[in-house]
């Protein structure tokens, strides 16, 4: 009975380790995510509509990558990309929508 319990525990630990290994981000994953984020951020800059929160998330992503925490770095880079894309969408929408607010 005790032996079975140990085997079960060992199997569970092995599964957990495998799962972690399967989902752990690598430096390459970060580079891929960061490249997409930088492209989106450059597009936002071209529209003169960057958000400070995008810059904050990018900074956090770089710091996490420098510390070897690639899971965190990828997550921050993806967050920055989402923010950059939202700022692009805002700029495109406002290109016409601002006129609705003008005092007439």
């Amino acid at each position: 009975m005790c032996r079975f319990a140990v085997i079960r525990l060992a199997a569970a630990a092995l599964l957990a380790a495998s799962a972690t290994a399967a989902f752990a981000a690598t430096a390459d994953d970060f580079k891929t995510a960061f490249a997409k984020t930088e492209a989106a951020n450059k597009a936002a800059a071209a529209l003169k509509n960057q958000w400070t929160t995008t810059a904050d998330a990018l900074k956090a992503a770089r710091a996490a990558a420098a510390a070897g925490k690639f899971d965190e770095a990828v997550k921050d880079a993806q967050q920055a990309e989402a923010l950059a894309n939202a700022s692009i969408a805002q700029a495109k929408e406002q290109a016409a929508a601002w006129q609705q607010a003008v005092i007439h």
Partner: protein
Amino acid sequence: MLIAVAAAALGAQAARAAGTVDPQADFKAFRAYFTKRFPNVPLNDFVNGPYSMDAGLRKQWIEIDAFPPYQFALDKGKQMFETPFPNGKTYADCFPNKGIGIRQNYPYFDAKSGEVITLDVALNQCRQRNGQPPLDYTKDDMAALTAYMAYTSRGKPFDIKIPDDPRALAAYQKGEEYFYTRRGQLNFSCASCHVQSAGEHIRTEVLAPALGLVAALPIYRSEWGGMGTTSRRLTSCNSQVRAVPLKPEDEQYRDVEYYLSYMSNGLPISGPGARP
């Protein structure tokens, strides 16, 4: 509904593209909006920003103004203005009327460069013509110089011209666009605070109306613990709504100052000001 809104927006754009931008009509509508919304505020009092909106704040301001917090900047600005450059010339040599009592004419549209020139930019152009490095548009020296020049213009009505030049009209229109465009993660435009929410509170502050907003610049802000130029005010507003600020005196900032100053035509210069 969405189609109708999109069609209306496209229609408005097309109308503007066709050259129907009418600064005078905008001016009348802008003034009518604020005077109707705040019927008890005398027209010239709009230049006093939040103090024209809130009696309690006004009492505090009157007390504060007995010993104006911008006085040190004013003294420094006067000294800087009168101190000759190494070549013997002074700022006075760069400006009409020797730089005294001219704040109400800035910004202006410069036909030669095709751009809007603010007082701050004109001061740095003067320095460069006299072999001096430009001053930082957001720092104390620029605030001191503009404070002194505003002080010599107190009470003089804004007199901003939009010459018969399509480039000037385009600059005006870009300024108007900047003013009404939402930006930053908080999705605020300048108008969100200074038109739609003028006179209301944002946390403990009373939001100043856009009418007369630029008349008090530069300002001493208690929140900053020091003086602030127009550039500092604009970059700080951008940061507060979580938008990355533009470069100080960026073309868009100069255009929005042009637009807002034109909207304040006829209102007296009240700078330098003091704000909470």
